[in-house]
């Protein structure tokens, strides 16, 4: 009789029934789970109906009556509605699969579990969600939500002139992006900022990595004494809060009474170098400072890796009569790269968004004629200026979006390099 029941149990019916979440589970005789699913989905619809309704309306219209509807509020409600919907859909799909899987199990003749057992099962399988839940919730609202908000803002016309709640915002599709490449002032600024950002990222990061590698290798030389002390001093720039050292460098590089001009350059060459008033020299100073600030972290990483390379490699190389350069090229360098590549990519990404240094050193300045960004502004510090100085919110958001796309390229490379990505199953 039991076997009849199992054979007649239909996977199709279970899946079809769970189009209304819970019914399929009830059909599978998972009563507790079924009831919980039913209640949850009913509660979801009842509790969130208003939010979803207003949210989607707000997302499409951005409000209809000026001074009553706050477009920003409506936009954020719209995004909340989107997030809720995606959670709902995930749950819904999981529910379909769950009903299907249980029905299959029953069909295959595995014993129908008792209520107590099924309760324990439910607790076991939902426990990880309980753990991830709070963190995910925070992440969704503090990281993902603002990122989405910014992405949407890039397609509106939010500036100081028509700021809510007095005015309504409108969707303007890609106008902000086309403005960036067609309106001459925006275009020239955008292109010069973008190119400096890329040069800055590449040059500053590469120099800091190269210096770190050189130092790590020479300090690791067995003939060098007092390694601990040397390493500690070399790590020092990383240990001191960055904003302090950057502001100190601003003082040191001061055109008129900074120590660098006063004590080094002027006695030697007569004239001071315009560190803060000429874009070229500001850039040179920035790269120098970033090298100072950034090499210790990479140095510490490399030192850690160097100490873990087995000496057998080098002994074998010595037997073969390898030169020092060859040993570096074929043993040291590959080891360093293999172990740290993802972190080095992070260094490039970090410098790409190195707001602190650019802003604190010279506020992105000096000013350049014919463009609305300073001569050393990188994309992210330009976004900051547009947001907080000139209140060009939507164009700032559009630039942030472009920034995000470039960061995503970094992320792609990191994914490929991270070994976790390759062995997908065992992450």
């Amino acid at each position, binding site marked *: 009789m039991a076997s009849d029941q199992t054979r007649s149990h239909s996977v199709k019916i279970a899946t079809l029934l769970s189009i209304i979440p819970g019914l399929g589970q009830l059909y599978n005789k998972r009563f507790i789970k079924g009831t919980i699913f039913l209640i949850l989905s009913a509660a979801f619809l009842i509790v969130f109906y208003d939010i979803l309704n207003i949210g989607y309306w707000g997302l499409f219209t951005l409000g209809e009556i000026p001074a009553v509807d706050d477009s*920003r509020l409506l936009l954020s409600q719209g995004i909340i509605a989107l997030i809720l919907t995606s959670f709902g859909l995930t749950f819904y799909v*999981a529910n379909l699969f769950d009903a299907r899987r249980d029905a299959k199990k029953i069909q295959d003749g595995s014993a129908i579990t008792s209520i107590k057992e099924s309760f324990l099962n439910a607790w076991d*399988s939902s426990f*990880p*969600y309980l*753990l*991830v839940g*709070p*963190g*995910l919730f*925070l*992440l969704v609202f*503090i*990281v993902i939500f*603002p*990122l989405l*908000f*910014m992405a949407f*803002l890039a397609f509106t016309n939010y500036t100081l002139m028509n700021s809510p709640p007095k005015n309504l915002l409108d969707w303007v599709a890609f106008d902000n992006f086309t403005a960036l490449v067609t309106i001459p002032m925006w275009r020239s600024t955008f292109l010069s900022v973008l190119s400096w950002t890329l040069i800055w990222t590449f040059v500053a990061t590469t120099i800091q990595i190269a210096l770190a590698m050189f130092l790590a290798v*020479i300090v690791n*030389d067995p003939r*060098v004494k007092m390694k601990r002390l*040397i390493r500690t*001093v*070399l790590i*020092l720039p*990383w*240990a*001191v*809060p960055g*904003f*302090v050292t950057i*502001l100190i460098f601003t003082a*040191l590089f*001061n055109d*008129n009474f*900074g*120590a660098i001009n006063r004590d080094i350059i002027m006695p030697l060459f007569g004239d001071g170098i315009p560190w803060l008033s000429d874009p070229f020299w500001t850039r040179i100073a920035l790269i120098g400072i970033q090298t100072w600030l950034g090499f210790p972290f990479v140095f*510490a990483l490399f030192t*850690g890796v160097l100490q873990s390379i087995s000496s057998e490699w080098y002994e074998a190389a010595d037997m073969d009569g390898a030169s020092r350069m060859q040993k570096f090229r074929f043993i040291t360098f590959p080891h360093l790269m293999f*172990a*740290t590549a*993802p*972190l080095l990519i992070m260094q490039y*990404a970090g410098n790409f*968004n190195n*707001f*602190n240094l650019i802003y*604190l050193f010279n506020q992105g300045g000096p000013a350049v004629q014919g463009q609305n960004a300073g001569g050393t502004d990188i994309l*992210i510090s330009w976004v*900051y200026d547009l947001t*907080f100085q000139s209140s060009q919110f939507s164009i700032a958001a559009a630039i*942030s979006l472009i920034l995000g796309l470039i*960061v*995503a390229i970094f*992320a792609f490379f*990191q994914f490929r390099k991270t*070994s976790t990505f390759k*062995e997908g199953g*065992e992450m």
Partner: protein
Amino acid sequence: MNHKLKNGIELTGIYGFLLVMFIIILYPLLWTFGLSLNPGSSLYGADIIPDNWSFKHYIWLFTNPDSDYLIWYKNTLIVATATSIGSTIFVSLVAYAFSRYRFFGRKYGIYTFLLLQMFPVLMAMVAIYILLNLVGLLDTLWGLILVYIGGSIPMNAFLVKGYFDTIPRELDESAKMDGAGHFRILFTIMLPLAKPILAVVALFNFMAPFMDFILPRIILRSPENFTLALGLYNFVNAQFANNFTRFAAGSILIAIPIALVFLMLQRYLISGLTSGATKG
């Protein structure tokens, strides 16, 4: 002989280069300290070794009624403590789930975290500013704390997950056999064993508010809510070059403890980062 000579020249080169590095590294730091002892307030005429040095800027910071230094210190401590506790809790829960459970959505969850750790919270500053303004958390320490905790989760979760992965699975599996529940395993086995990495996470999150300048700058508006970094920045920004010596004194007082803690802990961070990167 020739070999010995070559050896000697090389060593001299190495030590010479290191000496130059030492000077470049230490000069700005020592200069800051010297600056803080200068009795005047401006950059002009300030010397690295002042003739008539004094602690008057340090005394001003603590005793002058116009000085908000202690309030800033208190604010920073509040933010740092709350961030540290909050993010350690969230991070260890998330990392435990990712390390020990196989569940629907886990893989995509990990990818999302990997991706999010590339995006600095700063990138969404337009949105954060508008949103905090909307919900009334602008210019409050709570707004700042929430943003810090949320932003710290992706990166730290990986660090802790990597550590959890190195704890033998047999330990918690045998405990499960003995009938220990999920929470028992977490609290009596996993967390105690992961103490070193949790301490690192807690400490680094504690130190972050002392070092960070830009988020407070966006979120906090009124001087009585400032954190140290923001307050000190305003010493030099408000009237440039006027209070540089005072800034130097205030900075020395936070730089020294932070640098000491940091130097003691950095190798744990490094080993956590490299093992997380290679072993996943």
